[in-house]
């Protein structure tokens, strides 16, 4: 049995209703406003960087998916430095938005994946083809395995994916990445909160890290 009569749920209900309004009100990507936000929040330099990113971003109908992932993968792998969350954010694990990653010019594997994922969606790549994937990485058989995250691109639902990895500059099919073992993958397709159709969640108590970053991406006009 669910217990809903806990202290403060009145407040929670009102807050969530308020939040829903905010989210729905800003729920469309708007790159001009993203750039303004970058300028007002981080200054001209970051705004300029965002401008470069926008120039790089392939148009939705122009090129093929492969060209798009190639271009975006390269942009982030070249322009963003890999830095641990503990150093960058003084937190164990922090999932940064696209804007935050560009503002820092740095991020860890999740930040790369999120930045690429958001950029690809903006470039018109269907979400159903993209999977954020937890992988076990063992560069050498004698090395200790480490936790890593990559972005997988499935041209066919049942086919072999291409791997977009910040540790490997090239995009390779999964079979050519024996160092990676997939553990679990996900995307935002079935998250009910997209499109604003369902009720807002209780933002203070029960938001997953993934949904949190999606909400922040929306708030920053990226998704």
């Amino acid at each position, binding site marked *: 049995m*669910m217990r809903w009569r806990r202290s403060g749920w*009145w407040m929670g209900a009102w807050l969530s209703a308020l939040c829903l309004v905010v989210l729905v009100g800003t729920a469309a990507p708007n790159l001009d406003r993203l750039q303004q936000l970058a300028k007002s929040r981080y200054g001209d330099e970051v705004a300029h960087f965002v401008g470069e990113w926008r120039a790089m971003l392939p148009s939705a109908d122009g090129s093929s998916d492969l060209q798009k992932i190639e271009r975006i993968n390269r942009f982030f792998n070249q322009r963003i430095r890999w830095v641990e969350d503990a150093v960058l954010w003084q937190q164990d694990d922090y999932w940064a938005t696209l804007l935050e990653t560009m503002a820092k010019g740095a991020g860890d594997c999740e930040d790369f994946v999120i930045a690429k994922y958001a950029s690809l969606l903006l470039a018109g790549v269907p979400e159903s083809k993209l999977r954020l994937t937890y992988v076990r990485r063992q560069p050498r058989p004698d090395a200790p395995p480490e936790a890593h995250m990559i972005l997988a691109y*499935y041209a066919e639902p049942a086919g072999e994916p291409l791997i977009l990895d910040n540790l490997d500059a090239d995009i390779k099919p999964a079979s050519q990445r024996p160092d990676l073992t997939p553990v679990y993958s996900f995307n935002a397709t079935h998250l009910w909160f997209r499109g604003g159709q*369902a009720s*807002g969640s209780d933002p203070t108590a029960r938001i997953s890290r993934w949904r949190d970053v999606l909400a922040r991406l929306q708030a920053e006009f990226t998704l």
Partner: protein
Amino acid sequence: MSLVKRLWIVVGLIILASVLAAGIINIRSAQRYLENDIEVKNLDTATALAISISQSATDAMTVELLVNSQFDLGHYQRIDYLAPDGKLLLRRERNPDSPSAPAWFMRLFPIEPAAGVAVIQSGWKQLGSIQLHSDPSFAYDSLWRSTWVLAELFLLGGACIGLLGMVYIRRELRPLHRVVEQAEALAERRYLEIQPPRTREFRLIIEAMNRLTHKTKSLLSDESARLDKLKTEHEDDPHTGFMVREVFLRKVEDEIEREDTDEQGLLLQVHVANLEELNREIGRLQADRLIGLLAQQVRQALAAQPRVCCGRLGASDFGILLPGLTDGTRLLQQLHASILQAEQGHLLHLSYGVACYGPQSGMPELLSACDQSLTVASADGPVLPMPESVMSARSATDWQRILQVALHQHEFHLARYPVRGRNNSDLPTEALARIRSSVCGETLVAGAFLPWARRQGLVGQVDLEILTQALASVDRHGHDICINLGYESVRDAGQLDRIAEVLTQHKSQATHLYFDVAEDIAFEYPESFHRFCGRILPLGCKVGVEHLDHHVGHLARLHGLGLQYVKLSRALVKDVGQERAAQTLLRGLCTIAHTMGMQVIAEGVSRSEDAALLFELGFDGVAGAAVTTGGAPTP
């Protein structure tokens, strides 16, 4: 509908509206919360399931097996397994429990959580996705139950607030009763002044009514004073302050004719034999001063006598009426002594005459008897043979027996005299008490037995007996009836309680009962009279003042008592046809009495042309021989 009820309804509606609004918001939030909670749970469970399947499944077959086992052991309503291309591969579903919440409630507050969805893969290979649905019936039940708890709490809270509201409204509206009371009093021409309450609106109303009251009161007092002056000028001799001849004679006549006063008494005459000489010798002014001194002494010497009145019968003759007195020797000597003491020059040569009157006495005979008995006062004082009493003398013992027997055998009865209103209408009949005594075989009038009853302390019992008779008469005939009460009944609190008790027992008859209270009681014991009115009027009876004469100028003092009528003494209305000044006075009196909401009734009107004139002057009713058919009372 009363204001309190209206306010109470408004308060009730407000409470209901707020409770409903709060309740709906509350349920709505709970509904969203539950829905959200289930959705999150669905998602978490789907993800956990997908992760565990992803670790062990290698093909769709294994996935189906895992889903089946999960479904069979778990508490899901439905689990769908879809291929990567969205095709449904497997659906396991069970019928949801039917919730205890009613259908309309579920329609009003639907709980429709989205399914939890998670993708499954084996290695890099996608195996599709699972969709997980939960049974919302328990959520409905929970919502339904909490709605009930909420409704109970709100109802309790609403009732408490309503109760507090009602107490508050009652407290705030308390001054309203006083406002209403004052307004009703105004409508009945009773002018009450009330302490203004704190509530602004009520205060304004009461202050306005107080101003009106105050204005009316001062108007009435002014008018009364004016009339009093008029009456004094008209009726009083300027040098002595005694009544002028005509007024005095009317007064004597009234005293003789009225059956509720003492049956017999003395008429004393003081004659100044040498007034003409005095006028010549010491001058008219000095002589008048001397006469004034004489009058002052007479008044002082007689101050202790009840119902005494003095008149100037002529330039050198003074009349003194002493009701109830049969032997005036001592009184006469006192009187003479005090006159001599004041008038030290022994200038006045005084003679005294005396006559006794009874119920049958005629004025001319009485006056000539008095005149004939005039005797010059010697140096030792006046020596005057007292006249034989006109009444058969009964001893105190006789009277005691008569009264006791009358009380025990219920020998009292009421003689009823009609009172005619305008346009020949009937006003409440005046009922006078009599005893048909079996002891002496006579019918005794109030004036005869009342003095003895008073001496023996039986007036209270007599009044109660009369009251009972009157109530019985009302019960029999259904007519309004007027009765007299002795001053004991007005002044004695215990007696008043007994009267009120009798009236309370006969509530419906009491409304037909009118109490005549003599002016002496009403004006000389105002607190008692006030208490009497305050006690009797709420019981539905009416109260009026009768025999109004001497206190006409103080009419405004009756203000605020709620009296129904005043009856003007026959002495005041007797010669209305002849005297213009009397007409002015009476017209003014009627105006004042009407302003105070009282009817004016003339007593003892004997000529029907006088009755017509009195109605013209504004009187509302007349009593007396003019309206009594054949002059005899109806039994």
